[in-house]
């Protein structure tokens, strides 16, 4: 985890600096959360892809589709459209997450510049 630690004794830490450090910490936390969420969303997408392929290949007219805790007998076409809907949903979520991740990376780079500029060696903002 990135830590903000000041080891110099000459540079004073103002409230604004503290707020920048806090913001950096928050962004970093959110960044790691996003990475996990993106990983899960990608997995769900892959699973849906595999499921969709299986459904296309199957000969049965009825597919057991999981709704809640039970497997309902659903006609093949309905299953295909349901899976497609779910795939669209997850793709949109994935896109939004990636966008948020990009903007966080940019913001964190900005803050790094500001904080390193003021504190130079006295602060460490890298992952260990």
């Amino acid at each position, binding site marked *: 985890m990135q830590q903000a630690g000041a080891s110099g*004794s000459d540079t004073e*830490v103002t409230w604004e600096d503290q707020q920048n450090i*806090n913001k950096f910490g928050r962004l970093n936390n959110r960044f790691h959360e996003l990475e996990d969420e993106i990983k899960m969303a990608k997995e769900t997408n892959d699973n849906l892809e595999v499921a969709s392929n299986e459904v296309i290949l199957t000969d049965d007219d009825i597919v057991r589709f999981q709704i809640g805790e039970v497997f309902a007998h659903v006609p093949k076409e309905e299953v295909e459209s349901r899976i497609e809907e779910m795939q669209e949903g997850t793709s949109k979520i994935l896109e939004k997450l990636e966008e948020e991740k990009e903007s966080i990376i940019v913001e964190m780079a900005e803050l790094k510049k500001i904080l390193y500029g003021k504190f130079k060696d006295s602060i460490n903002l890298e992952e260990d």
Partner: protein
Amino acid sequence: MASSSSSSAAESEGGKVTERRGIPAAAFVEDVQTYLSQSDLDANSALAFFQERLQQYRVVEMKLLAQQRDLQAKIPDIEKCLDIVATLQAKKDIGEALLADFEMSEGIYSRARIEDTDSVCLWLGANVMLEYSCEEAITLLQKNLENAKSSLEVLVADLQFLRDQVTITQVTIARVYNWDVYQRRTRQAVAASES
């Protein structure tokens, strides 16, 4: 001196939050020297105090994280329930029965034929299950879903506030420690030059 306090956060005149839902805010130290003389503490006692504060924050953080995990598990569950009730309603509208395979016991499944259903039973917790009409069930489930989502939002905000306080405390500890080291060095240098 105007101070406004809402039910979740209390603000001082500087606009800085002094506490949030029972979590005390870490006071920002403008100048280490002033802070130590004002509070009449030496560096070590101040450090001990801050370390203890940090521990308390960690305890609260663990609690909040556990609550967050619970809520994050609850939300998909409620969404699954809504899904099923919607499916039952859809089947009822076209007049078909729903065939479903369900788990009777681990690894053992059985087939069920669910005919025209006007009502569902909802598990309310505490060994209580109530029968609702499909519409009522959907209303109740959606209300639960919204409550869960807004609780989660508040929780996430609490966690962010808490983490900020932890960061402030860590930085303050570092500054007090550095100030102390600097003081010792200066005193040693003065003592060395006098002898």
